[in-house]
């Protein structure tokens, strides 16, 4: 067990390493740096001025070296300005400029400063991730039970009218992208054009969550997942219902209700469990659209802001967080699978 987790953590680190390097490379392409220089210093710089700004701010070094600096394994750059002040990657960040540390990167806990929000990246990530966490939690609370219920009800009598109608519903919801269903809900349920059941904006939910201001974004994300998980559960359930041990149970005289609840359910949930765990990384995706749409300033919204404003440090931090969320949930999923299914061993 320990070996298994250790191996998985190693894989995780390696994946994170590769991925951040790719993001680092893409965000540090020359045109991006030029844009950065113009936003940071002055929009009306000449090409030569841009060149020297880039040089002075340490962006002129080879990519590998700068990646090392960001990671905290290479010493931060330093140079002496024409007017004699000492500047450097770590010097600029330190409060005590004289005794600044030599290394300041991810490993030292220094995530850098966001150029958009003018705040330390770690602070931004923490608050935004917290907000998204709240959103995700309610999505899961709504999505998982209803999806399983729909899936099990549809799968227990394959081909019945109930199955047909629930399956149609699941296909319809999975086939509708969030930007369509989101807009649809806003127009018909929260504006003057339709029935105005929901009032308030999701922005206000950041301070004070109520059913009225928070249900729509949750529903929009959950609906897509409900269809998907319900389809998986249904497939798994129909397969289990044709298994021989279900026939055994039926011919033991077990009532249909108990055949489903006691015999079929646990076996049918094994496959959807993996799918549900896969939903976490997917949710990180889903929130990008929904948070922007509802102007809920969570992780997805931050990602959009960082990307559109070329906020290199923030973007990098976002990708690191995303990688860890994906890999940690997969680890949990694999371990949980072993306990759910008594026959499985992980080698």
């Amino acid at each position: 067990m320990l070996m298994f987790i250790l191996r998985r953590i190693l894989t995780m680190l390696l994946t994170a390493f590769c991925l951040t390097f790719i993001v680092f490379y893409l965000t540090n392409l020359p045109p991006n740096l030029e844009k950065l220089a113009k936003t940071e210093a002055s929009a009306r710089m000449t090409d030569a001025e841009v060149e020297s700004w880039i040089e002075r701010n340490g962006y002129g070094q080879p990519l590998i070296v700068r990646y090392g600096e960001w990671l905290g394994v290479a010493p931060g750059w330093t140079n002496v300005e024409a007017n004699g002040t000492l500047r450097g990657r770590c010097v600029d960040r330190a409060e005590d400029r004289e005794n600044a540390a030599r290394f300041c990167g991810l490993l030292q806990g220094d995530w850098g400063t966001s150029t958009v929000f003018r705040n330390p990246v770690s602070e931004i990530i923490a608050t935004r991730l917290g907000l998204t966490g709240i959103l995700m939690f309610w999505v899961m609370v709504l999505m998982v039970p209803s999806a399983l219920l729909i899936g099990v009800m549809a799968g227990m009598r394959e081909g019945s009218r109930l199955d047909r109608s629930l399956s149609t519903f699941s296909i319809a919801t999975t086939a509708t992208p969030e930007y369509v269903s989101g807009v649809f809900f806003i127009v018909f349920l929260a504006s003057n054009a339709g029935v105005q059941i929901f009032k308030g904006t999701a922005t206000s939910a950041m301070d004070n969550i109520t059913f009225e201001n928070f249900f729509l974004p949750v529903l929009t994300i959950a609906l897509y997942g409900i269809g998907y998980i319900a389809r998986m559960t249904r497939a798994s359930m129909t397969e289990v219902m044709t298994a021989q041990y279900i026939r055994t149970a039926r011919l033991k005289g077990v009532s249909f209700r108990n055949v489903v609840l006691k015999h079929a359910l646990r076996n049918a949930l094994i496959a959807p469990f993996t799918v549900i765990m896969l939903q976490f990384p997917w949710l990180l995706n889903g929130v990008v659209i929904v948070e922007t749409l509802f102007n809920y300033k969570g992780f997805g919204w931050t990602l959009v802001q960082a990307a559109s404003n070329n906020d290199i440090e923030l973007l990098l931090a976002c990708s690191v967080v995303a990688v860890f969320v994906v890999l940690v949930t997969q680890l949990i999923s694999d371990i949980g699978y072993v306990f759910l299914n008594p026959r499985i061993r992980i080698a």
Partner: protein
Amino acid sequence: MVDVIAEEQKLDLDTYDGPILEIENLSISFFTRLREIPAVMDFSCTVMPGEAMGLVGESGCGKSTVALGVMQDLGKNGRIVGGTIKYRGRDLTHMTSEELRHIRGKEIAMIYQEPMASLNPAMRIGRQLMEVPMIHEGIGANEARKRALEVVTDVRLPDPARILDAFPHQLSGGQQQRIVIAMALMSKPSLLILDEPTTALDVTVEAAVVDLVKDLGKKYGTSMLFISHNLGLVLETCNRLCVMYSGEAVETGSIKSVFDMMQHPYTQALFRSIPLPGADKNAAPLVAIPGNFPLPHERPQGCNFGPRCEYFEAGRCDAGDIPMFDVPQDDRHETRCLRFSEIDWNKPREKSVTTEKTEVGKVVLKMEDLKKYYEVSSGMFGGGNTKVVKANETLSFEAREGETLAIVGESGCGKSTFAKVLMGLETATSGQILLYNQDIQDTPIEHRSTDTVSSVQMVFQNPFDTLNPSMTVGRQIIRALEIFGEGNSDQERRDRMLELLDLVKLPREFGDRMPRQLSGGQKQRVGIARAFAGGAKIVVADEPVSALDVSVQAAVTDLLMEIQRQNQTTLLFISHDLSIVRYLADRVMVMYLGHVVEIGSTDDVFAPPYHPYTEALLSAVPIADTRVKKKRIVLEGDIPSAMNPPPGCPFQTRCRWKSEVPGGLCEKEVPPMVDLSTGHQIKCHLSADVLDQMEPVIEIVGE
């Protein structure tokens, strides 16, 4: 009002002494979009209290459909289209699902073919057992658990308390089947339906399970409906028997009258196609039933068996539906044959073609001290300690040209591992395999020359999985020819392919057919053609006929024999079926837990002195002949795990002769190979005196 009816029914039940099960003119059909497919037609049978009724027939004859019909569980497409099924005088076909629920499990219980599949994998054994009385008798969990413990002890499982807390996958196949039996007996039903209950089990386990079912049937006074394709098993377990063919009962009667005075051509043909003692591949070969089983929607007019029957009379047998006739002077013996009183049933069968015994040639394959060990790791998440599985332990033998060497043993004895090493799918841990004096034990198949590969070929157990479903039969054989480098042009290879189809007696048109259009026996013929494509010198046949029906088995076995005679092929015939081994093998090698425990000519191995394991194995095989008297030797317990073999002799944990060896030698040392006579060796500590006193297991009374 409801109470009154229930009360009346209860009274009925208490005083009822008629038949337990009475099926009258039952017809069951399955409905597809295209057509109605009749699965069972005009089927009648009666099971009296305490009686065991056998239902015999080949796959597709409708015997399982009858069982599910009794349980009223025919699925969405199946429907009873005529007739009645009465359980203790009450018609099951008109019951509501609620009434049926009370009968299922409580009054009628069922035991299934695949024990692993019929137990819920995610539920502990105890809960699955306790459920039955809790539903039907409304008793509490504690009492139910007590009952479960009792029944698990009754089915002779060791350590019942531990078993109740286990999950199904933690038990062996035999133990699982005992649990399924225990589950059926939890509420003491009056009728037990057994659907091929031992087909998935090894012979010695089968013998123990059959013994158990018989004893429990007596103890609980349960009537039984025993469905099987194995006539020998039915002989051992049942009082009466019903033979089915293509959806109809063709003959029914007491075991004695059907076995000894059969009155239907199909029953006769069936008996002639199974290897009974006395059958011999050269002097008295088996007679396969000609033709194929008709598909349900292609049944002929009149007698279904007509087109394959040697007594067929045109204009009479195919005129119209044939009812069941009573056979005079015999109790409840019926047959569905118009000509049963005209046929001379005692006429010995016409002498079929006999052949000369083939001469065996020089040694082509020699194994010396072959060992194959595997390393496996334990623990839930891998890691843990690695253990060594000794799959093959000091295997030594030789096989000659034109010889049939049978390798016999139960699952887990290492016979398949041996085949893999020989084929080059695995390499040996130590020891030597000499093929035409060439070492091949360390050469995996990728590094073997085309010549070596084509000269050692294999025929697989399951013809349904070994053919590529999306390639024509001819193409697959040609592919094999290409790989073996046979033929110089496509045309030549195509001609050779057609010749191969002739060789395995398939029509040449089959070359353009897809595997799904072929029956099981035909697919196995294609498998044989493919194996012989490169002119194989040694063919390893891994249970080549065990997935096939009895009447087809005979034909496929004969085919193998014939090709062997023509090509002087060495046949290594891996099987657990001792009847067929006795019929076709020249020499037999018996394996147990990776060891060869006995090797010798077929006559030597099948006659005393035996190795104690061979003795038990022989006693376990059901033989469909009323004249045969067998000594019952039931092996207790399961085969020890190869990961943790017992010290000393591998068989000592289950051996009934162990006490005859002084000084506990069996537990200390692996016995040496002892020569008994020329070429007959056993691996046993028993002294020559004791061995000489052994009595034959199988005796034919009246000879």
